[in-house]
């Protein structure tokens, strides 16, 4: 499956690595052009480093820098979409849809990866995923990219069945791990997670529903 132009649409610095880091590394190795459209700077995040090195007012600066480093590790570009953390669901949906559709029409990707709306746990994930799905639907059929959707909710498999795309990314684990570690302010909030072998194993497989699995 060759994807030349891939756009990833998630709301927070670190979503790109957790959900799609291995897949990105794989695409890049195969010569694809991947851009991360990052919705917010994660400025309302709860993790301030451990020991604490950020505060509410400086967190976005740290996270912007971490995102810069992570995207360098992954070998991709990023664009900041300019929304504020925790508030995407309160913006008028049509405005975000138009914003994304206009940009997608310019960029003409073969593939868009975003969150599965309603199954992505964080309200920003659900809201931006919803807008991205709508934006793709509004595009002319001949320009419409393929859509892969990342679900996080424990409820996803029960409600939606198994994702159509299950990718073993253990071959790219070193890159994904390195990118994860660049998200330093968030890293120690991840410690619990990363110390658990089963959770680590989960991160070595990346799963995506496809557009026709939407409901």
């Amino acid at each position, binding site marked *: 499956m060759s994807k030349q132009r891939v756009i990833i649409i998630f709301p927070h610095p670190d979503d790109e690595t957790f959900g799609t880091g291995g897949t990105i590394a794989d695409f890049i190795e195969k010569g694809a052009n991947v851009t991360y459209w990052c919705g917010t*700077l994660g400025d*309302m995040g709860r*993790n*301030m*480093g451990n*020991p604490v090195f950020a505060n509410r007012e400086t967190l976005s600066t740290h996270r912007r820098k971490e995102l810069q480093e992570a995207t360098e590790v992954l070998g991709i570009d990023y664009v900041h979409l300019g929304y504020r953390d925790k508030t995407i669901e309160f913006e008028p949906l049509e405005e975000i849809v138009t914003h994304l559709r206009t940009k997608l029409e310019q960029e003409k990707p073969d593939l868009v990866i975003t969150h599965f709306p309603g199954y992505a746990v*964080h309200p920003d994930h659900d809201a931006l995923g919803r807008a991205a799905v709508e934006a793709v639907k509004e595009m002319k059929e001949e320009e419409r990219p393929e859509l892969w959707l990342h679900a996080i909710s424990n409820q996803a498999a029960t409600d939606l069945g198994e994702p159509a795309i299950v990718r073993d990314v253990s071959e790219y684990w070193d890159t994904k791990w390195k990118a994860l570690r660049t998200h330093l302010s968030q890293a120690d909030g991840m410690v619990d997670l990363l110390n658990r072998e089963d959770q680590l194993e989960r991160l070595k497989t990346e799963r995506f529903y496809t557009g026709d699995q939407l409901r």
Partner: protein
Amino acid sequence: MEAIVREDVQKEIDAFAGKPVYVHLETTNGAYASHFNEKAHNVGAFIRNANVTYSHGKIISTGGGYRVGLKLELGWVYAEGLTDYEVDEQNRLLMAGHDEQGRLMVALEISQTPFAHEADSHE
């Protein structure tokens, strides 16, 4: 940020009394609380750039942390669980309470100029 020294923070609170100030007040237990524990509720609230004037304010030690109350003409600003503070280079009083993993649980910040609110602005 460093651990709150009550007397020092009290002086900072006093310095803003009687002046129009902008307040950021927030509490959160994270967006994933109910994802990792089905019985947990996600709880959070924030107000950014509330423009108020307080006649006086006080910081009280609770042993483990601190409470701050600011008396307004028509009400109060209140925060509990504060543990750390700093006065940043813009002379803003930033206070926060963190758990043992450095995660923010509560924040109360006071400034004479508005806090960044544009999506893109950062300092």
